[in-house]
């Protein structure tokens, strides 16, 4: 689950990442979200306290993702998922349906699993957000990720980052899960490759590993 090149996703021909390119060129991509926005400038004119009026135009937004404080200026329409993927290069949470159905964008916000595509970045402020990138302790895989490897719980891997995060959030609330609880509790994530039985085994294994006094527990 570790990202090898944290800040250089999808290198293009001229050494520009696709994201750098969109950002720099102001190209209108279909969602229209990338055009007029950039990573936060140094001096964000953040109004003190809760401003009643936010927008139109960019507003200062502060997010706490994987323990790091990220200051951005975004239009209010930007979702947490787009903020992470398009402005912070935190690309572990994937975008598939963009309508709260598939689970690939799952992150943990304030202790709860949520779909990052269904939370506006502006609403995600003030809560600790954990993505797949934030689960590991250095080089060592989180027990949940390790259990996915051990149990062949992925095939193409596209659902995996969201699924692992959903499993971690589930285990936090159900430390001794039954198979039935696992099935119901993880119904918010889809795997087109059908790796569900592997995932079920992985969750059971991780539940044991966490209780066994792992460093990540």
């Amino acid at each position, binding site marked *: 689950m570790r990202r090898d090149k944290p800040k250089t996703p999808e290198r293009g021909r001229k050494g520009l990442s696709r994201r750098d390119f969109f950002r720099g060129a102001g190209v209108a991509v279909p969602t229209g979200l990338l055009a007029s926005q950039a990573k936060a400038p140094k001096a964000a004119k953040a109004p003190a306290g809760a401003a009643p009026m*936010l*927008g*139109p135009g960019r507003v200062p937004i502060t997010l706490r993702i994987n323990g790091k404080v990220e200051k951005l200026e975004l*239009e209010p329409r930007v979702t947490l998922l787009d903020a992470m993927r398009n402005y912070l290069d935190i690309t572990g949470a994937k975008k598939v349906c963009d309508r709260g159905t598939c689970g690939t964008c799952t992150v943990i916000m304030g202790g709860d699993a949520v779909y990052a*595509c269904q939370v506006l970045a502006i609403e995600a402020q003030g809560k600790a957000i954990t993505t797949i990138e934030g689960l590991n302790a250095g080089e060592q895989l989180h027990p949940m990720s390790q259990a996915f490897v051990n149990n062949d719980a992925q095939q193409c891997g596209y659902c995996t980052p969201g699924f692992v995060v959903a499993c971690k959030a589930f285990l936090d609330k159900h430390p001794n899960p039954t198979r039935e609880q696992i099935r119901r509790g993880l*119904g918010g994530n889809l795997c087109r490759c059908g790796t569900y039985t592997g995932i079920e085994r992985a969750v059971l294994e991780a539940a044991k590993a966490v209780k066994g006094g792992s460093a990540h527990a």
Partner: protein
Amino acid sequence: MMPWLEAFHRPTTIAEALRLMKRGGRRARFVAGATDLLVEADPAARILVDVGRLGLAYIKPHRGGWRIGAATTMAMLEQSEGMRAFAGGILARAAAASGSIQIRNRATAGGNLANASPAADLAPPLLVLDAQVVIAGQKGKRRLPLADFFKGVCQTALKGDLLMEIILPPLNRAAGRRGGERSAWSFQKLGRVESDIAIVNAAAGVGVDAGGRCRWARIAVGAVAPTPLRIAAAESALQGRPLDSESIALACETVCREARPITDLRASVDYRRQMSGVLVRRALEECLAGIEPPRH
């Protein structure tokens, strides 16, 4: 995804929230968990007014019943000890079936009702519990029965006003409970999987006297008409009769007759009509099992 969104307001008082909605006019919408809003993505909605800072996320005991703030999430409802114990826990059960955990952590009770989908899972249990809603508008607060709140598919009595809270009256008063009476409740949902949008959902409550006769019955179904419905004719079909398979079958026939479903991508008219009867039967059978005296 709402690329056309222009502004987002985070009012901290109800007066401010109403002022912002008035100023925004047709372009403004309240937003709670955004689980319906971001999927519907109505291009007319340019301004969002967040209800998350109005202190409306609570579940409080109230004169033998309950008050539930509009911003209370499904996850809060399903985890609440009070809700799990009240009326067979049907509201907690419905909340637990309302989408995946990622949805339930965000989706609110107020959003579920204000969105007024015919399939809203909280509607049938709230209807059989005789819930009332409290609405705050420009001219002050008003209170009305939930049955009068739904006006059509995605249409309510709100008209731009704020849904503040849901009131659950005490069970005994509303049910006119007398000595020797036993009551039971049920929530049933049919979806492709339980967490999917309901093809049909239903809730029921019955009170039975010492002789096994049905004193009162309440039956509500969803996704079989433009709004979630109480089926009064099915309720009176049970009243005064012994609660048994015969009277239950009669009530279910009535439900099928009263249902006015449509065909959509989830199910056909005929299937919905038939399943509305099946779900009510399951609900009443669960109630019957719940009130049968313990066998010795």
